[in-house]
């Protein structure tokens, strides 16, 4: 460090901010100035080890060293302990990337997240950014689609549809206006991967969108970002500005015949707007009502034009695939679940955070090895996987592999990769009731099984909780669930029975059974 300043990283990720990262950064600045030490503070994204946030890192000759969770009041003692030269401290964890939680992961989509300054294009390029796009810009669209198809990448938003097939459909549509719409509505409880990526490595998403644009011949892109994410909105807007100034948006990107622009659009608090057809309605300035399919968006989407709707993680993974090749990506994973999945450990969990692993890791490994059990220290009773429309899984089934097929076989789903842990104080009848209530609150109201069924479902569970004709009402509930599953227009009403019926099935004792 001869003569130069010492680099200290303090995340600006919303989760880190929620536990005081700004105060910690300010305190480090003050303390360094007071001691006349030349410190450069870089506001990076999060490494995803959220229980250690605010996680402060110091760059040393031996790599970046981690200290956390750092409170404002710890800063003076960190300086006293000479943390700037890697001094030992009660909060020291050694080299960040050697922390077991991190070292056991396969970081692909999140390779740069937490490592770089999110808005530094130089950092981005120095860590492999733009390689995928530059390759794509000299490839024919069919070649790009071919690589994405061969990689086995499936949509990370929830439905798991093969991305290459979707892109191919849009590519095959006659020319004229086409759109790339990034679904950044991330409404599932227990998920935050999209947010983390947009705050920690926003350019990777822009790069993925540009690749998609080249692949299908689109010239306009939208990021539909939920209003509950003000930090991500700010970062993405700034990222678009930087990208535009660098000539990576607009006419003839990097001298190619691809012209593409991106706009950030903010949602207005409606879970259903994560459903793709509802999202497109919302992007047109309308009520976010789901629509009957077909036609699928890839044929007739935004303003009736061919439209790619992909999740943040899906799009942000394509640069890696283009850069490293389809085979490299496909090498991760099992069966028809190829690549890596960013899992999110949430709820009552000791080591909550983001775990990117190849498909095939088991739920038990995630909850116990990575997560370290419940934060409360109580025994774990259940996990809800895949968001509010996902199943409750009892501990005895924790050996299930976390891939699309194995989860489906177990009557569960992967969704967007959320894993929410509940301890033994949870009342599963109340959780089932909440699933119906959430559907009632968030239903777009277009079809009866969902709009009315959710209200009836909630009332029926209330009766069961109050011990009114339990056996009879459980039957009513079951029939209602079957009706919602079969007759709802979209997966909001269609999947709400999944948490309800899994709760009844695995935890009958909570329903008086």
């Amino acid at each position, binding site marked *: 460090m001869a003569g130069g300043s010492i680099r200290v990283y303090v995340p600006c990720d919303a*989760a880190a901010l929620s536990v005081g990262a700004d105060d910690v950064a300010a305190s480090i600045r003050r303390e360094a100035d007071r001691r006349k030490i030349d410190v450069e503070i870089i506001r990076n994204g999060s490494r995803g080890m959220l229980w250690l946030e605010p996680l402060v890192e110091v760059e040393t000759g031996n790599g970046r060293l981690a200290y956390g969770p750092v409170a404002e009041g710890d800063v003076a003692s960190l300086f006293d302990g000479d943390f700037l030269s890697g001094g030992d401290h009660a909060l020291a964890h050694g080299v960040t990337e050697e922390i077991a939680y991190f070292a056991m992961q396969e970081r692909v989509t999140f390779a740069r997240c937490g490592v770089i300054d999110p808005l530094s294009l130089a950092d981005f390029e120095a860590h492999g950014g733009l390689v995928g796009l530059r390759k794509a810009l000299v490839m024919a669209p069919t070649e790009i689609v071919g690589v994405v198809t061969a990689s086995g990448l499936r949509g990370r938003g929830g439905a798991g549809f093969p991305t290459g097939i979707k892109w191919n459909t849009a590519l095959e549509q006659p020319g004229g206006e086409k759109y790339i719409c990034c679904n950044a509505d991330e409404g599932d*409880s227990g998920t935050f991967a999209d947010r983390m990526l947009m705050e920690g490595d926003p350019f990777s998403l822009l790069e993925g969108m540009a690749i998609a644009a080249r692949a299908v011949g689109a010239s306009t892109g939208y990021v539909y970002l939920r209003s509950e994410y003000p930090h991500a909105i700010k970062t993405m807007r700034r990222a678009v500005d930087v990208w535009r100034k660098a000539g990576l948006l607009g006419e003839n990107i990097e001298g190619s015949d691809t012209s593409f622009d991106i706009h950030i659009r903010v*949602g207005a608090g409606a879970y259903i707007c994560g459903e793709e057809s509802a999202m497109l309605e919302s992007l047109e300035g309308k*009520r976010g009502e789901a629509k009957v399919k077909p036609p699928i968006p890839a044929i007739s989407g935004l303003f009736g034009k061919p439209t790619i709707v992909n999740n943040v993680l899906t799009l942000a993974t394509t640069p890696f695939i283009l850069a490293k090749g389809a085979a490299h990506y496909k090498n991760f994973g099992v069966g028809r679940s190829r690549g890596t999945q960013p899992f999110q450990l*949430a709820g009552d*969990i000791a080591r909550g955070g983001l775990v990117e692993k190849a498909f095939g890791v088991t739920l038990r490994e995630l909850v116990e090895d990575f997560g370290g059990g419940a934060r409360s220290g109580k025994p774990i009773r259940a996990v*809800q996987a895949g968001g*509010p429309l996902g199943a409750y899984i009892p501990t005895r089934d924790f050996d299930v592999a976390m891939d699309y097929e194995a989860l489906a076989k177990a009557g569960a789903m992967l969704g967007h990769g959320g894993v929410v842990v509940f301890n033994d104080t949870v009342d599963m009848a109340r959780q089932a009731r909440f699933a119906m209530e959430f559907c009632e609150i968030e239903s*777009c109201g277009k079809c009866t099984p969902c709009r009315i069924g959710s209200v009836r479902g909630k009332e029926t569970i209330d009766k069961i909780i109050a011990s009114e004709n339990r056996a009879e009402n459980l039957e009513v509930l079951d029939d209602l669930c079957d009706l919602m599953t079969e007759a709802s227009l979209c997966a909001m009403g269609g999947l709400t029975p999944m948490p309800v019926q899994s709760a009844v099935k695995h935890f009958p004792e909570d329903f008086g059974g």
Partner: protein
Amino acid sequence: MAALIDKLEHAPARLICGRHDNRPDALLEILHEAQAAEGWLSDDALRTIADALNISRAEIHGVVSFYHDYKREAPAKLAIKLCRAEACQAVGSEALAAYVEKKWNAPSGGKSADGEIQLEAVYCLGNCALGPSGMIDGELFGRVTPERLDALIEQRIEKMERE
């Protein structure tokens, strides 16, 4: 006639629409901006927006009522959002909400008797590993305890009283 037209016209809303080239597909953005300026959406603002975008008032009401974010009455001075979704439920969000309701006399979804505080239920703030989570004025808080929330509320009330 002039007086009536003046009453209908909401100059800031008209300006916001103009900045979006009066495009109907920008309606959500326009509503966000109009609401950010005043804290809620008045009849006059909605009428002006409908006129500027050349859409019916029924249509604009349909949109405004669909989305949870849009408010049709002036909010309390201090709006507190508490996450009530599953991952936060797993770490005690319901007890926290009940505590706030009682302590500050503010029913969920409504305002306190003095109109100062408003408690809003939201479903996931993307901070599910560090719940219970809350948001005040766009600032996110994690691992919220009753004590921390009381302190945050008191700080803000003091600040408002100073201003």
